[in-house]
């Protein structure tokens, strides 16, 4: 055809760099996402800099100043042991964030990997994974948590293991269905025709197309993960005392909910802030990753 073109619009920068740029572009364009990032960063900063933000030791009991309502001295009040709630929320952010993010992260990675594998490969792989999923699903997550924790003993890693284990089936299911739909699409067929290995097809072609669903699910389950810690704490199997966690604080707050409702409310609000922030980021990310995103017709 005509002479080779002289100018080229394509310089291939590193993938991460391009991703980061896309992220930054969307982030700056998307006020909600910026707010989300700011909120999340704020929580992370409070978690890391807890000693700075809360001068009081979160473990320091003051038995004679228990259940003090929010007041200048303790601006979020004190708990049943007279410990400062704000300090506990700040320090608790560390563990709760780690539990939520890591547990959901692990579940998301393993679950969607298995889901894609199951949906794409079909056949006995699909059968095996589906059966395993059913077995996992057949345990109420509280029971599963109880068993894992009873078996391995309560510790943060074990808790994370328990919560991820309970969450994995959700991600398997959520990623398997769209994978099956995608498998029939011509562009996946084209990949096969081009001799791409199944692994490449799954990672490079299917995964990017089901990201949005996984992301939305991920940001939703984060709240659940932090809450499950609360549920386990509720039956007494959360993180070791006296380490503060939001879930544990909610449990303790529940005991006093009729006298001092703020005990359970403040940590719940903290969870809300994180989940809200992550959802805003998740939605923004989704827009960033979806080139096709059309505006609704109105």
């Amino acid at each position, binding site marked *: 055809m005509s002479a080779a073109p002289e100018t080229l619009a394509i310089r291939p920068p590193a993938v991460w760099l391009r991703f980061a740029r896309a992220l930054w572009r969307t982030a700056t364009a998307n006020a909600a996402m910026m707010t989300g990032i700011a909120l999340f960063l704020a929580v992370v900063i409070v978690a890391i800099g807890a000693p700075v933000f809360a001068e009081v030791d979160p473990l320091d*009991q003051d*038995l004679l100043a228990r259940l003090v309502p929010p007041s200048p001295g303790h601006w979020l009040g004190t708990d049943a042991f007279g410990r400062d709630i704000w300090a506990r929320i700040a320090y608790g952010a560390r563990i709760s964030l780690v539990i939520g993010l890591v547990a959901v992260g692990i579940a998301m990675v393993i679950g969607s990997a298995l889901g894609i594998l199951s949906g794409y490969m079909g056949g006995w792989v699909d059968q095996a994974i589906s059966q395993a999923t059913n077995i996992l699903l057949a345990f109420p997550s509280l029971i599963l948590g109880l068993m894992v924790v*009873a078996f391995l*003993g*309560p510790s943060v890693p074990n808790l994370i293991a328990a919560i991820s284990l309970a969450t994995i089936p959700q991600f398997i299911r959520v990623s398997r269905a769209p994978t099956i739909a995608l498998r029939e699409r011509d562009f996946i067929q084209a990949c096969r025709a081009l001799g791409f290995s199944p692994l490449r097809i799954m990672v490079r072609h299917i995964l990017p197309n089901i990201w949005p669903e996984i992301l939305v699910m991920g940001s939703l389950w984060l709240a659940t993960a932090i809450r499950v810690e609360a549920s386990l704490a509720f039956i007494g*199997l959360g993180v*070791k005392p006296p380490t503060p966690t939001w879930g544990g604080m909610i449990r303790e707050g529940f*005991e006093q909910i*009729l*006298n001092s409702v703020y005990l359970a409310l403040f940590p719940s609000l903290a969870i809300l802030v994180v989940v809200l922030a992550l959802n805003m980021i998740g939605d923004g990310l989704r827009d960033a990753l979806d080139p096709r995103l059309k505006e609704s017709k109105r």
Partner: protein
Amino acid sequence: AHPASAAEKVIRVGMATGDIGKMDPHVAAGTPEKTLFTWVFNGLVRIRPGEANPQFIEPDLATSWEHSADNLTWTFHLRKGVQCHGGYGEFTADDAAYSLMRAADPKRSSFSSDFKAISGVEALDKYTLKITYKEHVPSVLGYLVNIQGGNMVCKKAAEEMGADFAKHPIGTGPFMFQEYKPQQEVVLVANPDYFRGKPKIDRIEYKFIQAIASRDLAFEKGELDISYGRSDQAWYDRMSKLKDASVVTTEPTELYTLHLNQSHKPLDDLRVRQAIAMSIPRDAIVKYRGERIARAAKSVVPQGYLGYADTPMLPYDPKKAKALLKEAGYPDGIKLHVVQTSLGVMRDTMEVLQGQMRKAGIDLDLQIVEHATFHADIRKDKSDAVLYAASRFPIADIYLSQFYDSASTVGSPTAVTNFSHCNVADAEIRAARTETDAEKQLAEWKLAQKKIIDNVCSVPVYELFDAWALSNRVKLGYTLTGAPGRGIPLLEETTID
């Protein structure tokens, strides 16, 4: 609730449990079951309603009794015409003998150890029962009151029903079992043939409501008339403010004791144990729990028990505790690995101890486990320290024998609940058990308590009362200060407006 006819009087009781266990008085040991047994069963004798102290023992199914000079042979004369529930006939000496044998049989009873000393039970005639003992027992009558193994069951019913008896208890008490709904309630109805007269209330709805807040709200809204409370001052204060209701705290108390396992380092060192004793601010903890709810422990035996002696303990002094630790070779403090149950009050108490002992450089590394695991683990010596709450029949012997006699050391074949591996007072405890002279017996017990405390086998923390919220509409018919069976007795004279 049931469509109550205007005339029907119903009392609704809320209990802190998800469900009830076996309704067999010789098997179940939990508060929910014991509360139920109070209404269904009688003993040969009983403690006057409203009291918890054995000094108030009075006739129940037995109208009178006498014993031999050596205290080893006891004869009881039974009340005539007492009817078993459900048409199982008259309650006779045969039933009483059967009940006692049943309670003493380790295969059928959780309380067989209480009756170890019995050598024979015999129905002399329809209304006369003879019990013979191998050795002296500090309080024969105490074991025959209507709690635990002292509850009298009807032989024919128990034998006919076999394992089903636990689902449908038959006794002679003022109320009869009617219906059980899993996870919901047990319904009891008045026993029209009750020997003290037909009860004034027609029915008891005994509801299992695990969550305290729900129980409180149900009580507040009038859906419950009696509600099991929480041993917490905040709860006490809030409920006390309710109109038309009152809050009562009852004995027996549960004594919370921190047992220090001497077989574990560094607790083998007396100085370390003393340091621990000095790191616990008993009075502050009582304040935290609530002064209407708790009282500071004054010995290793709960107050009011026969043989209890107020024994001075080491005062709270975290500085001195630190110094002692340093002296023992732990300048940076010590760390104890503690297995702890996840159950509410026990765990709360442990967290307070943890927070307080921290100030003396003692770090409690709590491994919170499920209650079942807790019981298994502490019996395998897995914990450096065991926080245990218990109330026993109010005689010092039981407490001392089970917790501080080396024969009861966990892991041994005769193990009960000696978690501390304490053996300093074996001689005194054993001597007191068979001592017939009351004075001498008291002296031995007193010495035993002092030795245990001086040796810091354990650190008693506080005693907690049971707390109940009662609607003012409920008229118990007696003054309530104690409830030996934990549950509030609802009797023939109890009524509701």
